[in-house]
């Protein structure tokens, strides 16, 4: 059995064997906001913040997350509100199919926490682990550079 604090709430779970943190979040804790598009750490759609670090939850064994604090897309903002990066993504039309969006929101929130006014190049570096197949990234970059007060 493992203990996790997810979005401020304590959970216990019994992951099977080498089960990933992503599978535990989605299938045992009912937090389906984190997506699974590759399970190889290549696409970032499963991004969560674990003890302050941005991780691909598909690459973290749930057992290794025992005792950690996790923030998922569901916990970026209080219920009924949006985190500024979430608002920016929606308002700049950075969401199409939306499958990549939770991962981008988490990765961007993590970036802005460390660096409130990142440059366009900083934003690109920080999001280079997140794949979007729909938008071509233009609107995502405009959303976040706008938030940073930068020209894209």
């Amino acid at each position, binding site marked *: 059995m493992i203990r996790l604090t997810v979005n401020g709430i304590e959970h216990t779970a019994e992951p099977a064997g080498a089960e990933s943190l992503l599978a535990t979040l989605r299938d045992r804790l009912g937090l389906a906001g984190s997506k699974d598009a590759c399970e190889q750490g290549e*696409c970032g759609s499963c991004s969560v913040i674990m003890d302050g670090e941005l991780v691909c939850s598909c690459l973290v064994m749930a057992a290794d997350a025992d005792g950690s604090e996790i923030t998922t897309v569901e916990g970026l903002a209080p219920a009924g509100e949006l985190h500024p990066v979430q608002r920016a993504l929606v308002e700049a*039309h950075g969401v199409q*199919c939306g499958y*990549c969006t939770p991962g981008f929101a988490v990765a961007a929130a993590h970036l802005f926490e460390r660096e409130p006014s990142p440059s366009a190049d900083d934003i690109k*570096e920080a999001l280079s682990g997140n794949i979007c197949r729909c938008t*071509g990234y233009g609107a995502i970059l405009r959303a976040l550079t706008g938030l940073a007060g930068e020209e894209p």
Partner: protein
Amino acid sequence: MTTTPTAVPTTTAVAGGIGTSPLRPDGIPKVRGEFAFSGDLHEEGMLWGATVRSPHARARILSIDPAPALAIPGVHAVLTQDDVPGRKTCGQAVKDQPVLADGETRFWGEPVAVVAADDAETAARAAAAVAVRYEPLDALTDPGEAERQGSVFRTMHVVNGDPDRRGEVVVEGYYETGTIDQAMLGTEAGLAVPDGEGGVDLYVATQWIHEDHEQLYASLGVEPGAARIHLSGIGGAFGAREDLTLQIHLCMLALHTGRPVKMVLDRAESFAAHVHRHPSRMWYRHEADPDGTLVRVEAKLIFDGGAYQTTSHAVIANGAYFAMGPYHCESVDVVGIATRTNNPPNGAMRGFGAVQVCFAYEAQMDKLAAALGMDPIDLRLRNALDAGDRLPTTGQVIEGAFPVAEVIRSLAAMPLPDAGPGGDPRHLPGGAGLTTTAADIRRGVGFAVGFKNIAFAESFDDYAEARVTLTPDGLLVETAAAEVGQGMVTVLQQIARTATGIEQVEVAFVDTAAIGSAGSTSASRQTQMTGGAVLEAAEAVRDEALRRAGGGTLSGEGVLRDGVVVATLADVLAEGPITELVRFRHPPTTAPSETGQGDLHAGFSVAAHRAVVDVDPDLGLVRVVQVDTAQDVGKALHPAALVGQLEGGILQGVGMAVMEELRIDDGVVRNASFTDYLLPTILDAPDVEAVLIEEPDHWGPFGAKGVGEPPTISSTAAVVAAIRDATGRDLTRAPVRPEDVAGV
């Protein structure tokens, strides 16, 4: 109330109408992670499905023993071809693909059996435990050999004009493109729920629920009404969801076990489960008069269709009809062949046959310009087609807008970016790894123009149904069209708003039992087709509301006269409901003659791309700096979403130009993962500037054209042309690999 309208009905100016960029209604749920994709569905007591797939490109199945799988605790079913209750095959035009392998497997990854178990992990173990004995057979994987053997799905011969016409200046070329994957981010997933009375409800991400439905109930052997398909959240599509993948399997398992069954493919399986963009081999000969007038084009195209037909017949048709680009030519002879092999099946992907030929004909146009000593843009302008001209391939007179020259001129007039990569190493090819230096970089610029048809062709009865209902609060739009991410949901709201003056519009995606087909979300067609149906239905609703109120203008408040509400929406509805169901059809098309002649297409759209690249020719590294575009859009209904289509489509074109390819050896896919199939990241994405050319279409709502595919047609050609410009190499194959650039 009077029964005759006293004036021409009008509407009030409405917020969020066409030409503005309102926020999409699903944006907030998506950004919060609350939007339910097909892989997020859950039902109490559900089982998990998994698929047994052929490890061979071709093999005889000697036996299938389910016993070892059934012996695993928690396994509920192992089903094979024998268990398919109805028609044992499926497919869009031709039902040639076994629902489960029929004694022989014909491609790597072909489904052989399906299992259901208590959880995903047990299901995966059960699939691995099903004992299948194969006898590998010789696989036919070379398309050239397939052509020689006559193993083909369709052969096109498009002939037009005087076959003896010859030009003084002649260029020939041979080109190839690789197999490309849609790589939509959400893999195939669905949930089937039995209704306890022999029927089933399927929740799935797909591009056309009614087409899926026809194939589904036939293979389940049930009445049409006993199998219902509901759209669930779709994580991108790009053609990958046009053919059935797990739909029948899921319903078979649910009906067999009497339990809900969910299945989610992992990425490796997803590569095996859906069709890809056809790899191509293309030979071309262009002939021109010395003044640059194109006079004859000959081409031979071989697109490999793989093991089953899916849409190969239509993809090769597009290749042949659009084989020479949006240019005049007196004499044309195009042979197009879709081969049948033991490669994984190929079918629909954004651009649908127009992409491969554009790569070839635009390389030919550059080559011809060089042979003529002419500026390549001048050569294109000299031969550009316009509305009212005949397409040199099919002979069809082009109706509606077709502003080829304006697209070319507008793009050519856009400013180029700064001269070099600058001092930041992150802007060099290869990125911050400091693999190259600014002194080693050569910059290249490439230009390409492409076009294709919109909506279905060749006499297909193409229609879309939509229902618009007035409610006391606004409008309800019901449709079965698939919102795959492109933003149709917002565009339908905008069309209904502008047609009625009512801002409050809800779009409901309803199931196969609730409404007729909207047709496929493909061929760039839904803005025009479902959009056309919504426009007609909304106008009829508006007219009826105004008739009941005795005229005036409609708004969300109700019917206004002289700025005063004379009837609320509830008042108008007191007489009874107002609801309009419209089945919208585009202008009819004809079937092709033996030589590919006829009015085969409902409309066309043209776009051009100009790419700027920085290349290290020794290391073979390429950075795509900028891709600008001009596109013929008819009318920009939602400018921000439209730009999103251009940027997304361009990046897929960039991927095909420099990094994406499914590597297939003897029919076996070698890179079925996101680790090995490279996709462009935000660091690979060029800057994009776009000019939208708005000349109204002849039948799209408010003159709008579909915009989804043109961004992907000529962007690949433009990027490769730019790399040629930087390196001086021929580069006749896409994607361009580092070794091609470096010449090793």
